[in-house]
């Protein structure tokens, strides 16, 4: 058959933009783009007009002025004379701290409960189901406030530790104090060592002892990995696996222990002094409440992801593994979970993002995250809503995109390799 309806070229009419299917989709796209640009232009123009109307300027110079307020939890050096920018960084580090702690515990809780929910033991699986449904279906803000309220009302105040016959005592051989101001843990310290190195003209300092210990630990684990691969090789060649646990344990423990001893490693214990406990690591109950609530809440979602991932693996896999003589624990660890990870990881990314973004509820318990410092006190004291909020959004955007990038890389590694 010949093509009878060859369109005549060179006779382009304006109406063809709408009625000719060759051009219509382009027309629609151009119109949509114009509409979008107009909407954006209107929003930006509105902002400029209103800033001008209220006599406000748009600049970030305030970031270099002294902040004037104090922050209780500081991972880097900060005092009330530091700049607003530094206060923002202190808040950012606090956000990252609680997000990192939350992601780790939420994953552990999620994997554990997801597996428990599939247990053949009726009570265990029901209990896991109750947990998941309870935490998933109540707003996380309520969990945060509840944990905080429990921490404040249930645990003893520092003054209860005082006197001849105190109402409360320290736990774990007088090493840990649990109070309604938080938990005081022993602080690792070095009697001698390399001291601190100052970076960027005093803006940052780094403890060389910690760096040294971390370096030795990483090296030890690397050697331990080499030993494992050597054992794998021997097993493949001879069928017998040499016992390596004592070598690997020694490689990991001994160098670090020797280094710690040489650096004069010891613990500084919290002691009751003045109004409360001094010394040790103070984990404030705001951090504890936020961390616990976020982990428990997000853990419930991750548990469902894990359950879905495991259920996506065909039952034949379990049966085949059992036929090969593997025990249930090993089946889960060696056969099911590695395959299930491919299903679990993509939704896991969004759970990590959720947890990080939910950490901005910190202000409910007075945890000074970046929303509390930059988007809270700095905003309020300088009155620069536009600038601080835009900067705040940018920070969360960068954090979220970084998490996505890392997890996507991990997903690439674990996903099914199709050749």
């Amino acid at each position, binding site marked *: 058959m010949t093509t009878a309806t060859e369109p005549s070229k060179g006779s382009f009419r304006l109406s063809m933009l709408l009625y000719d299917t060759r051009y219509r989709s382009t027309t629609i796209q151009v119109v949509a783009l114009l509409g979008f640009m*107009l909407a954006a232009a209107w929003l930006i123009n509105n902002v400029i007009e*209103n800033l001008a109307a209220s006599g406000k300027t748009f600049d970030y110079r305030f970031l270099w002025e002294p902040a004037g307020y104090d922050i209780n939890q500081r991972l880097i050096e900060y005092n009330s004379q530091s700049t607003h920018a530094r206060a923002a960084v202190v808040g950012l580090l606090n956000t990252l701290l609680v997000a990192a702690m939350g992601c780790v515990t939420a994953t552990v809780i999620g994997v554990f409960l997801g597996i428990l929910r599939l247990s053949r033991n009726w009570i265990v699986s029901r209990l896991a189901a109750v947990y998941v449904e309870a935490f998933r279906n109540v707003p996380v803000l309520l969990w945060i406030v509840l944990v905080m309220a429990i921490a404040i009302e249930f645990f003893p105040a520092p003054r209860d530790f005082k006197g001849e016959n105190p109402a409360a005592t320290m736990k774990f051989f007088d090493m840990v104090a649990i109070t309604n101001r938080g938990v005081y843990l022993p602080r690792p310290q070095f009697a001698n060592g390399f001291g601190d190195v100052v970076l960027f003209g005093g803006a940052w300092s780094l403890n060389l002892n910690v760096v040294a210990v971390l370096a030795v630990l990483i090296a030890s684990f690397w050697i331990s990995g080499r030993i494992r691969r050597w054992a794998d090789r021997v097993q493949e060649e001879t069928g017998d696996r040499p016992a390596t646990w004592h070598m690997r344990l020694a490689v990991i423990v001994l160098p670090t222990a020797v280094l710690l001893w040489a650096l004069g490693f010891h613990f500084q214990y919290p002691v009751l002094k003045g109004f409360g406990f001094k010394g040790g690591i103070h984990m404030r109950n705001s951090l504890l409440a936020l961390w616990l609530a976020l982990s428990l809440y997000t853990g419930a979602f991750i548990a469902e992801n894990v359950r879905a991932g495991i259920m996506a693996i065909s039952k034949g896999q379990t049966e085949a593994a059992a036929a090969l003589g593997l025990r249930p624990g090993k089946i889960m660890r060696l056969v099911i979970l590695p395959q299930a990870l491919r299903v679990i990881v993509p939704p896991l990314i969004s759970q990590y993002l959720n947890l990080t973004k939910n950490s901005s509820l910190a202000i409910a318990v007075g945890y000074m995250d970046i929303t509390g410092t930059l988007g809270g006190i700095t905003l309020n004291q300088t*009155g620069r*809503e536009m600038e601080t909020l835009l900067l705040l959004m940018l920070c969360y955007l960068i954090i979220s995109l970084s998490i996505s990038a890392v997890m996507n890389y991990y997903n690439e590694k674990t996903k099914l390799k199709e050749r």
Partner: protein
Amino acid sequence: MKKTILLGALTVAGLAAGTAAAATLDDVKARGKLNCGVSTGLVGFAAPDASGEWAGYDVAICRAVAAAVLADPTAVEFVPTTGKTRFTALASGEVDMLARNTTWTFTRDVDLKFEFVGINYYDGQGFMVPKSLGVTSAKDLDGATVCIQTGTTTELNLADFFRSNNMSYEPVPIETNAEAQQQYLAGACDTLTTDASGLAATRAAFENPGDHVVLPEIISKEPLGPLVRHGDQQWGDIVRWTLNALITAEELGITSANIDELAKGTNNPEINRLLGTEGDLGGMFGLDKQWAYRAIKAGGNFGEIFEKNIGENTPLGLSRGLNALWTEGGLIYSPPFR
């Protein structure tokens, strides 16, 4: 194509013009209600009573303004604001005025573009501690855990006070007064700091107020007063002179009991001018002659409002002190009505 862009630009310009601020007085009159920003609940200053009606020292200012402008002291929509949200609420036009324990400072006046219309309470930042702590001076608070309301001048004063006295402290930032109370009573912080009047109000709400003391040191000047947006002078004048009318009423002895009597006309020209039987002061800023009469009648004069809400016979038990009239050794002073 050119036409589309031109039309779009026109649309943008048209929409943007609609957002420019109109006169607040006209807005309030058209709405029939005054939107007044108050605190989220501070007994004596602004808190809903048992029947859900807002009452208090700051609330009375809102009611007086509503009575002056709308002839109805109940035509007020109270918008509870926290230390953090109050300025955004005012700047964005969500509220017409703010009567909320707000300290008059240079940056708020100049940089944040607000207009403080006067001072209705001369305050200062203090500390409250449980008696059992055995602390008698703020200088003994080295190392203490301090509960503060975030987003206020208090956290800046606190940082300055501890720094200048070479003391350390652990700040516990808190969003609202109710949470501060909870943490303080549970012993999660050693001391609670805010304006001394706020401490008295908080203490009055305790089960055993006698177990807590307010330390003698006052570490800052906190002149509190109502404020409006910068740029609408007419509205600013109305709020300013409503406050002044209440103060002048106390000075001239006009009370809610005798105001009807005095409004019939007296031989004191200043009372006559204030209550509208002589001249037309109200007409100068777009109100009627009776505006001040209604404002005073709404809750009484300045002294009556003080005594009724936070005075010595209330649970707060605050004495007039600096907040007495200038004729009685205080700082409360109104420019003359003429």
